C-alpha cells in the first residue's frame, strides 16, 4: 500500500470574475515511504495547490486523498511542511525553541524535547546556533531551522514548497546537498515542489512533470536512478536525465507562455 494516494483529485476556485477556475483535474499520484518525489512544473500550473491540499490547507473539490489509507481532513502532525519564506518561524522563540515546539505541543517532557530539538539542530548543522532568534540567522539558516522543526515532529511525509526559492544560488546549492544528506540519514518520504529542473534532478528519486494549467494534471513521471556522485551538473548521467525532463517540460513552458498572452 502506498503512503500517500491521490485519486482523481480536482480543485476548482471561485474566481473574482465569477467564472469558476479549475486548477487541477484528474490528478492521480502514489507516493511510497522513503522516496524523494519532486513535483516539477511551470509557474501557475497548480503544483502548490497539490501540496496545499495534501497539507490540509485547502480542500479538494473532487476525488480523494489519503495518507496511510486515511483521508486527509485538515493539517496534521503526520505531514510536516517547510514553507518557501521565513515567515512561518516564530520570531519570539529561539531556533531551538522553534524546533522543540512540535514535541512541546504533543506534551513531551521538557528534557526529552530539548534532547530531541538538539538532535535535529545538529542534524541540520546548526548545533551552535540554538540560542539565536530567527531574525539573527541568515536566510539559509532559517530554512534549515524550518526543516529541523518539521522533522522533530517525526512526520510520515515532509512537504516542501520551493523551500530554497528565495535563497541566493550558492546557498541554494549548499542546502540542496545538505537536504540530500539529511534525507539519506532520515529516509523520510519527501514531496518537493520546484520549477527548477536542476534542483529536481539533483534531489529526486522520482520526478513528476505537470502540464501547464488550467485543469492541470501529471504529464509524466520519471525515475531518477542516479548514484550520489552523479548528482552534479558535470555528470553525463545527470545531463541525460536533465535533457529528458527538459524535453517534457519545454512544451508546457511554451503553452504557459501562450496562455499568458
Amino acid at each position: 500500500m502506498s503512503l500517500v494516494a491521490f485519486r482523481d483529485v480536482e480543485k476548482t476556485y471561485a474566481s473574482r470574475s465569477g467564472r469558476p477556475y479549475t486548477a487541477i483535474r484528474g490528478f492521480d499520484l502514489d507516493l511510497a515511504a522513503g522516496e524523494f518525489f519532486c513535483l516539477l512544473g511551470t509557474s501557475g500550473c497548480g503544483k502548490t495547490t497539490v501540496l496545499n491540499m495534501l497539507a490540509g490547507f485547502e480542500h479538494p473539490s473532487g476525488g480523494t486523498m489519503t495518507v496511510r489509507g486515511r483521508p486527509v481532513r485538515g493539517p496534521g502532525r503526520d505531514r510536516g511542511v517547510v514553507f518557501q519564506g521565513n515567515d512561518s518561524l516564530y520570531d519570539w522563540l529561539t531556533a531551538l525553541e522553534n524546533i522543540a515546539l512540535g514535541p512541546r505541543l504533543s506534551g513531551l517532557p521538557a528534557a526529552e524535547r530539548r534532547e530531541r530539538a538538539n538532535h535535529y539542530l545538529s542534524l541540520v548543522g546548526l548545533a551552535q546556533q540554538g540560542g539565536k532568534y530567527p531574525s539573527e540567522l541568515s536566510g539559509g539558516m532559517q530554512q534549515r531551522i524550518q526543516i529541523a522543526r518539521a522533522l522533530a515532529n517525526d512526520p510520515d511525509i515532509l512537504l516542501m514548497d520551493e523551500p530554497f526559492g528565495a535563497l541566493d544560488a550558492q546557498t541554494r546549492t549548499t542546502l540542496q546537498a545538505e537536504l540530500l544528506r539529511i534525507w539519506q540519514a532520515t529516509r523520510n518520504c519527501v514531496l518537493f515542489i520546484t520549477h527548477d529542473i536542476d534542483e529536481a534532478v539533483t534531489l529526486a528519486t522520482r520526478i513528476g512533470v505537470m502540464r501547464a494549467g488550467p485543469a492541470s494534471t501529471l504529464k509524466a513521471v520519471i525515475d531518477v536512478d542516479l548514484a550520489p556522485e552523479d548528482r552534479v551538473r558535470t555528470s553525463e548521467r545527470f545531463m541525460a536525465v536533465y535533457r529528458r525532463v527538459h524535453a517534457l517540460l519545454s512544451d508546457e513552458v511554451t503553452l504557459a507562455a501562450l496562455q499568458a498572452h
Partner: protein
Amino acid sequence: MATLALRAAPAAVSAWRSTLTGAAATLAGFASLFVLWHLASVYLVGSALFPPPLRVLARGIELARDGSLLDNVSVSLGRILAGFAIGSACGVVIGFVLGAVAPARRVLEPYTEFLRFIPATALITVAVIWFGIGESSKIFLIAYTTVFIVIINTAAGVASINRNKVRAALCLGATRPQLFVHVLLPAATPYVLTGMRIAMANSFTTIVAAELVAANDGLGKMLWDARLFMLVDDIFVALICLGFLGFSADRLFRWAILRFARRFSPVM
C-alpha cells in the same frame, strides 16, 4: 585569552559610554527647559502670574511637607491605575475576539467604531450622574478611554498574524487552545503593549478633566481650587507633577517592556 579580553573591554566601555551620553543628553534637555522657563518668567514676563521654576519648587516642597501634594498625587495615580488595569484587561479580551472571530467583528464593530469617537471627557457629566463624584466615576472614565485603544490595537495585532505561522502550528499538531497560547497571544503582544502605552498617556488627560469637573481630591481638583483662590504657584506645582508622573509612567512601561517582553520585538 588576553586578546579576547582586550577586545571585549572596549566594547563594554563603549556601551556604558553610550548609555551615559544618552542620560546626559536627556538631563541637558530637561535642564535647558528649566533655564528657558526661568528666563522667560523673570526677564520676559516678570509677573506673579508666571512664577519661575525655583518658586514653584519651593511651593512644591511646602505642599509636600504638609502632605496635601502626596495625597492628591496618590489619589490621581490610584484612579489611573485602577481604570487602566480594568480597561486594558477588557480591551485585550474583546480585542482578541474581534481579531480572531470574523462574525464577532461585524457585530461588535458598530460598538467600537461608534463609541471610540465619543471622548471620555464628553462622558464626564453622565458618569457623575450615574456613579456620583466618588472613585467609581473616575475609574469608569479611565477604563472607558483605555478600552477602545487597547481593543483596536489588539484586534489589529491578531488580524495581522501571518497565515503561515498559523498553518505551521496546525501542521505541528496544535489544537485551537494551543494555537491561541503559542501563536496568537505572543504574535499580538507587541500590538497590545503599544496600545496600552498610548492608553496610559490618554489616561492622564482624562483624569485631570474628570477631577476638574467633579472630585473632592486629586491633581485636577488641586488645579481647580488653585484657580478659585488665584494660587498660581499651586497650579504650576500640579502641572509639573502631571508632566513628571506621565514621563515616569511611560519610562516605567518602556523599561518593563524591554525587560520582560523584548523577545516579542515591540516597536518602541
